[in-house]
């Protein structure tokens, strides 16, 4: 059962490399829901929780966890309206499909909101590889704006190089810089745009390691720091500092399984507090960091 689930998830990620990992997780959970033979709603919730845990063991990113929580919330909200399980399941399947359809449009909505903030002749700095940022830059390029991009190499997996290749294919002049060169390059740059793996309740973000550094430097240089993220990445965490981010998100799933002493490992993500973020572009609109918790409250309470 577990292998089936994991296999489905992996296939989803493989067939569409452009799909966000949260969307793949939600799709997998929806398929799991369809095949589930449970008799009660409580049983359904239990099995879905188990399924989410299996998925987080495969891919320990914040996005998968937030996708799973969102799906569970979706189940709870739907089950409140319909008491009968079979009807409930039908409604859930329909709504699930609709939800997936809507969130497939979220990147386009984000790009539509964000590209107006990129002016002609702008120099943009971005971190590592983010598909949402790529979509925003695609839209800006399509609107015939001229801009240059600096991408950090983003060790340890040099994801920045992939971003640079994708941008070169769009004929955008791009330079790959060392992670250590962020402070050096910031005086030339007009704005900083990064993606996010998760948006936390305070309005801060969890993203690839090096984002916090970039945010602190942009604050020091008075450059606007924009975050682009879809709304399904909003997660119910409230870290106050780097230590507060749970270990299960910081390290890759394999590392968590094999290594006993985590203090020797390098974390893959960091937390950027909301005071360093200028604006968040989401499919729910352009939000200031203080507006994020409002959105989460509307959903979860």
């Amino acid at each position: 059962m577990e292998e089936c689930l994991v296999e489905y998830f992996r296939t989803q990620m493989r067939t569409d490399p452009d799909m966000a990992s949260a969307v793949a997780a939600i799709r997998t959970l929806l398929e799991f829901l369809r095949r589930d033979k449970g008799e009660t709603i409580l049983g359904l919730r239990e099995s879905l929780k188990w399924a989410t845990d299996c998925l987080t063991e495969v891919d320990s990113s914040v996005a998968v966890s937030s996708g799973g929580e969102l799906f569970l919330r979706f189940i709870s909200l739907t089950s409140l309206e319909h008491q009968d399980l079979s009807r409930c399941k039908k409604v859930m399947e329909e709504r699930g499909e609709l939800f997936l359809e809507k969130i497939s449009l979220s990147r386009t909505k984000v790009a539509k909101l964000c590209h107006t903030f990129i002016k002609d002749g702008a120099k943009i700095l971005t971190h590592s590889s983010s598909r949402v940022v790529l979509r925003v830059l695609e839209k800006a390029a399509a609107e015939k704006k001229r801009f240059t991009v600096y991408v950090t190499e983003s060790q340890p997996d040099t994801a920045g190089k992939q971003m640079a290749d994708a941008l070169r294919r769009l004929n955008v002049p791009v330079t790959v810089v060392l992670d250590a060169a962020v402070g050096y390059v910031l005086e030339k740059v007009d704005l900083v745009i990064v993606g996010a793996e998760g948006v936390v309740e305070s309005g801060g973000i969890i993203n690839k390691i090096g984002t916090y550094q970039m945010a602190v430097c942009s604050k020091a240089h008075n450059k606007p720091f924009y975050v682009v993220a879809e709304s399904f990445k909003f997660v119910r965490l409230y870290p106050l500092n780097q230590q507060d981010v749970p270990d299960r998100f910081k390290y890759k799933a394999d590392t968590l399984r094999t290594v006993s002493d985590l203090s020797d490992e390098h974390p893959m993500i960091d937390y950027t507090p909301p005071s360093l973020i200028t604006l968040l572009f989401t499919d729910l609109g352009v939000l200031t960091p203080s507006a994020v918790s409002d959105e989460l409250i509307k959903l979860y309470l």
Partner: protein
Amino acid sequence: MPGADKEADLTERIEAFLADLKRGGCGTGPIRGSGETARETTALLRKVTAQARWSSAGDLMEIIRKEGRRMTAAQPSETTVGNMVLRVLKIIREEYARSRGSSEETDQQESLHKLLTSGGLSDENFRQHYVHLKANVIEAINELLTELEGTTDNIAMQALEHIHSNEVIMTVGRSRTVEAFLKDAARKRKFHVIVAECAPFCQGHEMATNLSKASIETTVIADAAIFAVMSRVNKVIIGTQTVLANGGLRAVNGTHTVALAARHHSTPLIVCAPMFKLSPQFPNEEDTFHKFVSPHEVLPFTEGEILSKVNVHCPVFDYVPPELITLFISNIGGNAPSYIYRLMSELYHPEDHDL
């Protein structure tokens, strides 16, 4: 024919209003204050609602949007016109929802909750006809007009909470709202006001004259002296032309200087702005953000020799980022800049943000 006469009359009024907008706001201070502009716009929109031919809310919204686009195109820097159009559109949506019987909160804003629970792609096309919709909308617009008339008084009423005896208050240029605010406090408290003259239009002089007529001790200083004097100031109270969606301001030039000086001395910066100045724009549109007027105020044309060798600019507005602002005082009370997004969601609907 009375019908044709009324329509001609309406078109004439709109044309006159547009011409006035294009002419006005030439930098020597608006020929009409923004409060008056807001009231005129709303009155015009009420007339349009009453006289234009429409059968469903969708038609009315289209008509209002069309008129709104024309009015904002006449003077893009006068954002109160656009804001009032958005308010009226929101009123129409609310009245429509009320007529349908659905609660006001649903279908209003995009949210994660709505994404998860909606049963279908809601195509709210506002096509249904309701008999009482016209009367309801006009009544709601009348309420809006009453609110607009009372804004300055509502703001002035809060003055006593913020101004205490023997305080030194600084202000910039001339703002009718701040003038009323200070005059109201002066009835019960004795305090001192320092007005920065705000070159090159020097509206500060007029402000100082009006304040001293109300027996408030006033001092006028040059803009260059703002930083020097700031250490003696207890509070800075300013007005603004627009409040932007991120909590920043588009205010008269020189305001950013005052804000930075206040931040340096940890002096609270209070902005008195009525709700109709709140605009859903962000400060990214550089071409429409700034307005430049004739530079002869900066360097008169008589200095012909120098003029051929230098570039002279005379911008009217300044951007003040939200981090420098302590408090917004509006007709609905005091709010922090980080709360502006919430006030915006209550006043305007996100789909109307781009007219």
